[in-house]
């Protein structure tokens, strides 16, 4: 698997949102807003630009059985699972480094 560009925060959020199951566009938007307590709102345009790129990079795929003319459901591909795991591992390393510098979220 080779990504054309590193994952953006929105793309990572989408991957995490559909990690638990198949969701359509609006459900992904709501999930991201809910988890961040309404701080990170993703608009429909930004969402589908990101979804297009994730589809192109084979990180997500359309769930064929749930497809309708109005809505498409998306799920993680094996490549997507690897990418999100690698990204989370990188974040964990960064958090460890921050903690070693005496920095944490409680500051």
């Amino acid at each position, binding site marked *: 698997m080779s990504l054309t560009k590193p994952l953006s925060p929105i793309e990572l959020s989408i991957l995490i949102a559909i990690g638990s199951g198949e969701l359509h566009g609006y459900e992904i938007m709501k999930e991201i807003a809910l988890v961040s307590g309404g701080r990170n709102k993703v*608009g*429909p345009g*930004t969402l589908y630009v990101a979804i*297009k790129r994730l589809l*192109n990079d084979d990180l997500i795929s359309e769930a064929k059985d749930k497809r309708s003319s109005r809505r498409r459901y998306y799920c993680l591909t094996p490549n997507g699972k690897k990418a999100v795991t690698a990204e989370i591992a990188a974040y964990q390393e960064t958090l460890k480094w921050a903690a070693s510098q005496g920095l944490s979220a409680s500051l």
Partner: protein
Amino acid sequence: MKHKTSLKIYKYLINFYPADFKRGYGALILDAFEMDAKHVKGKFALINFWRHQLIDLAKSILKERQYLSISTAAQPTTAAFGQIHKLLVYTGLLITAANISSFTLLSHFYLSADRMQYNGRLDLTFRTGMWLLIFLWLWRNLRRNKWFSFSSVYSFIITFATFQTFFTSFIFLMPFGWLMTTFLFPSYYPSTSQTIMFEGLNYLAQLIGFIISAEILLVMWVILIKVGRAIRPQRMRHA
């Protein structure tokens, strides 16, 4: 404002996305927007909602257009597609080059004989620079393989504008003028009424020439778009 009105406005705004993206995701974006808009209650919430939506639209349209320009920069072209557009762009380049030489550089030689026409020379210097810049810009786009860019549209218009001038002047006005001066107004000193009639007919001839050429331009434009769409290769899916 009811959410149906918001939906109509948003439906219009998504036309600013690239055509391929709109075809693939337009309906899905609209569906997500509709679901979101349904839950907006109150004027202030609506203003805030639209502020968020407009920023989101502007950002995503720019991002998608930027992505498209990168992914299609080295787009492979089919033989027929390449040949038609190569012909158009090269014709445009040739005509632009002819414009540079005939309208400006040659005029400079002419004007150097009359030093009183200083303002005219300044104007021509500006025009030379402008044509030169357009020429270089066309050449740059051609080198980047941008057949459907503004440069090919520009070349097309310049090409047919020149055809139009040719058509009006040489095919229509010159025989018309010859006909007028030889048969209708043979006198070297025509009367006022004859002059008015001659000028009136002259303008009428120019108008007819322009209308015919504009129609030819329009028909050619439609043909180009249809042919271009029919033979246009698929966009590259991966950057």
